C-alpha cells in the first residue's frame, strides 16, 4: 500500500532559464544564453533520476518496558531495514507513537538514505500514561534523489504498551448462574460463610447436620452456608458512535478508549481468577465480539482482541479525522506527511490533564469522528444496543466501560436494564482540566452519573490517577 505523488519542486527552475535567456537576448550577451542552460538542465534532472522504488522495509520495535507505571519513561527503539535491492536515497521515517503518550526524550523521526541491506535505528522515550496504548503504523516517505517524486507507505509492527495496575476484584451485581464461584448470594446452600440454621429435611448431607445441637436437645438441624456462585459478565467497551465530523458535543476519545480498554483487561483478569464467565463486546462503529467463556486461555484470547482488534484501534478512534480533514498539498509545496499530524488540534473535551505532556507530539486525544459522517448519533447507539442484545443470553450481566460522553449511552443502559441485564458502569473520567469545554463536559458527565445512579445502576467514577481497584471497591460497597 503506497501512495505516489509528485512534489513539483523543480517546476519553477525553468523560470531562471527564461529570465537569463531574455536578459541575454536584450543585452546581447551569448554567455547569458549559456547560463540559461543551467535552468534547463535542472528542469530535466528529475526526469533522469529513477523513480523511488516501492520500499521493501522490515521494521522491528523494542520497548524497554511493556507494562510501565503511570509517568514512567519507556525507551523505544525502532529499527528500519531496507530489504530491497535498490537504494532508498531519501527516506523519512516517522514512528506511529500512540497519540496519548508524550515523547519525553529524542524524536520518533529520522531522515536517512538506506542502501540495500542497510538499517537505521530511531531511539526515543515516551512517558507512560494510564491505559492500553497501541503503536500505530510507522509512516515512511521515500523520495527520489531529486526530490521530485514522493512515495508514502506505512509499515506496521504491532506493539502494545500497557500502563496501569491490576484490580483484585471485578464489579459484580447480584445475579448469578448456577455455577460455583466467588460471588456471594443471599441463597443458602453449600459455601464458606455461615448463612442460617434450619430444620433438618430428608436428604440433607450428614456433614451439614449440627451434631452438637442434636446431642444437647435431640432435634436435627442443618447448617446452611451462603452459596457462592459464578457470574457471567460481558465487558462492553464504549468506542463511540458514528457521528458527523465537527458536530459539537462530547464523544469518547482516544484517551477514554485507551483507559477503558486497559480497565477491561484488568477486570477480565480479575474475573478469570475468580472463575467467572466473561466475554467482550465493543459498543462502537466496528463490531467486536467474544462469547462468554472461562479460564486463562479465554483471557488470553480476550487480551489478544483488546490488543489487535480494529474495533479498539486508535485508528478507529483517532485516525478518522484524516477523513474529515483531507490532506491537500498546496501547489506541490505542502510538505506535511499526511498521517503525521503533530498539531495539537481539537481536544475540546478531552485532555489527559498532564502538565508534562508535550502537545507537539501528543495530540492529546482525538474525538471520535466516523467517516460515514451522516449517520445519526441516536440511531447509532440504538443500532449498537440492538446488535449487542441479539448476542447474549438472559443471565448475563454487563460491565459497561464508558466515559459517559453522550446522552444516548443512558438509553443503552436503560434498554439493557429493562431487558433484565444488570449493568455496572465503569467510567474513566476524561474531563480533567480547567478549560471551559472541560468544565462543561465534567458537568454533563456528573449529571449522567446521577441519572444512572437514580436508576439503581452502580457507576464507578474512575478519576485520572486513581487506582481502579479502589474506585471499584468504594462504589460496589453500596450495592452488596
Amino acid at each position, binding site marked *: 500500500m503506497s501512495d505516489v505523488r509528485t512534489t513539483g519542486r523543480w517546476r519553477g527552475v525553468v523560470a531562471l*532559464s527564461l529570465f537569463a535567456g531574455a536578459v541575454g537576448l536584450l543585452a546581447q550577451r551569448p554567455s547569458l544564453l549559456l547560463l540559461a542552460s543551467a535552468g534547463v538542465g535542472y528542469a530535466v534532472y528529475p526526469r533522469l533520476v529513477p523513480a523511488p522504488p516501492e520500499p521493501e522495509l522490515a521494521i522491528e520495535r523494542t520497548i524497554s518496558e511493556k507494562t510501565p507505571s503511570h509517568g514512567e519513561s519507556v525507551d523505544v527503539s525502532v529499527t528500519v531495514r531496507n530489504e530491497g535491492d535498490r537504494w532508498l536515497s531519501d527516506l523519512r521515517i516517522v514512528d506511529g507513537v500512540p497519540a496519548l503518550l508524550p515523547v519525553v526524550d529524542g524524536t520518533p523521526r529520522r531522515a536517512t538514505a538506506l542502501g540495500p541491506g542497510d538499517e537505521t535505528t530511531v531511539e526515543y522515550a515516551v512517558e507512560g500514561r494510564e491505559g492500553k496504548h497501541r503503536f500505530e503504523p510507522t509512516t515512511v516517505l521515500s523520495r527520489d534523489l531529486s526530490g521530485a517524486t514522493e512515495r508514502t507507505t506505512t509499515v506496521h509492527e504491532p506493539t502494545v504498551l500497557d500502563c496501569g495496575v491490576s484490580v483484585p476484584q471485578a464489579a459484580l451485581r447480584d445475579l448469578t448462574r448456577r455455577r460455583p464461584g466467588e460471588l456471594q448470594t443471599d441463597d443458602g446452600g453449600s459455601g464458606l460463610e455461615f448463612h442460617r440454621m434450619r430444620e433438618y429435611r430428608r436428604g440433607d448431607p450428614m456433614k451439614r447436620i449440627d451434631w452438637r445441637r442434636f446431642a444437647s436437645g435431640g432435634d436435627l438441624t442443618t447448617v446452611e452456608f451462603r452459596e457462592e456462585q459464578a457470574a457471567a459478565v460481558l465487558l462492553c467497551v464504549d468506542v463511540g458512535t458514528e457521528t458527523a465530523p465537527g458536530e459539537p458535543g462530547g464523544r469518547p476519545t482516544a484517551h477514554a478508549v485507551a483507559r477503558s480498554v486497559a480497565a477491561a483487561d484488568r477486570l477480565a483478569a480479575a474475573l478469570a481468577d475468580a472463575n467467572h464467565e466473561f466475554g467482550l463486546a465493543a459498543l462502537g462503529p466496528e463490531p467486536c465480539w467474544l462469547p462468554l467463556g472461562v479460564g486463562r486461555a479465554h483471557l488470553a484470547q480476550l487480551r489478544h482482541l483488546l490488543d489487535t482488534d480494529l474495533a479498539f484501534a486508535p485508528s478507529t478512534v483517532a485516525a478518522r479525522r484524516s477523513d474529515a480533514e483531507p490532506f491537500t498539498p498546496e501547489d506541490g509545496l505542502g510538505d506535511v506527511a499526511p498521517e503525521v499530524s503533530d498539531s495539537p488540534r481539537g481536544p475540546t473535551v478531552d485532555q489527559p490533564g498532564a502538565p508534562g505532556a508535550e502537545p507537539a507530539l501528543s495530540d492529546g486525544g482525538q474525538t471520535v469522528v466516523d467517516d460515514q459522517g451522516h449517520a445519526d448519533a441516536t440511531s447509532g447507539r440504538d443500532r449498537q444496543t440492538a446488535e449487542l442484545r441479539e448476542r447474549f443470553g438472559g443471565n448475563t450481566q454487563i460491565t459497561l466501560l464508558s466515559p459517559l460522553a453522550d446522552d444516548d449511552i443512558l438509553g443503552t443502559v436503560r434498554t439493557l436494564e429493562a431487558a433484565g441485564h444488570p449493568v455496572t458502569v465503569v467510567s474513566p473520567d476524561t474531563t480533567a482540566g480547567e478549560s471551559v469545554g472541560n468544565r462543561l463536559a465534567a458537568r454533563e458527565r456528573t449529571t449522567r452519573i446521577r441519572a444512572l445512579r437514580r436508576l439503581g445502576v452502580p457507576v464507578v467514577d474512575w478519576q485520572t490517577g486513581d487506582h481502579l481497584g479502589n474506585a471499584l471497591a468504594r462504589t460496589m460497597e453500596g450495592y452488596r
Partner: protein
Amino acid sequence: MTSLASSRELLDRPTVPGALLAMLAGVAAVGILIEGAGQWQALVVDVVGLALCAGGYVAWRRGQQVAGALSAIAGGVLVLVALALAVSQPEAMTERLELLPGLLGLAVLLAGLLPVRSSWERRLVSTGAALLFVGVVTSGVVRGASEIQLLAAGVASVLAWDLGEQSVSLGGQVGRRARTRRAELVHAGGSLVAGAAILAVTLGVAALDVQGLSLAGFAVLLVAAFALVFALRQ
C-alpha cells in the same frame, strides 16, 4: 512551559545541515564571480554579519535573550556595512552594482532558513536564491564574466535553492531535532553531480566553436532546449 514551547517550534523549522549547505552554496554563487579585493572585503563582512545574526538567533532560542539580541544587532549592522562597502568600494560603477543582489540574496536566504517567520520559509528561500541568480545575471551583463564562471555561479545559486528547500521540507516532515544529515548529504551529492554534468555538457557544446555562432543562432538553440524540456514534461 518554555521547553514545551521550544520543542513545538523545533518541530517544523528547517534542518541545520541542509541550511548550512544551502548557505555554503549561496556564498559560492557570490564568491565565484568576485573580482578585486574590495568585493572580497564586502563578501567577508557580509558572511561574518550573517554568522553573527544566526548565532544571535540560536542564543535567543536558548533563552539568552540579551546576548542573542546584541549579537543579532551587531550582525545586522555588519550586513549593512557590507552592502555599503559593495556600493562604495569598487571604482567602476558597473562593479558597484553587481554585488548588491548577491549579498541581499544571502541575507534573505538566511532569513528563510532560520526562519525569521514560520510558514514563510519557502518564500524567503526562493526569493533569496532568485536574488542570487539575479546577481549572477547582473555580473554577466555589466562585466561580461567568463562562461565557466557564470555557469558555475548559476549552478551554485540553483543548488542554494535546492538544498534550502530540502532543508525546509525535511524540517516540516521530520523536524529540526531529528537526525537528517545522511539524507541531506546524499541529496546534495545528487544535485551537485547534476550541476557538474550540466556544466560539462554546456561547456562541451560551447567548445564546439560557438564563437562563430550568431546571437540569433544561440536564441534558436535555447528555444529548442525549452521545446525539449516541455516535450519531456508531457
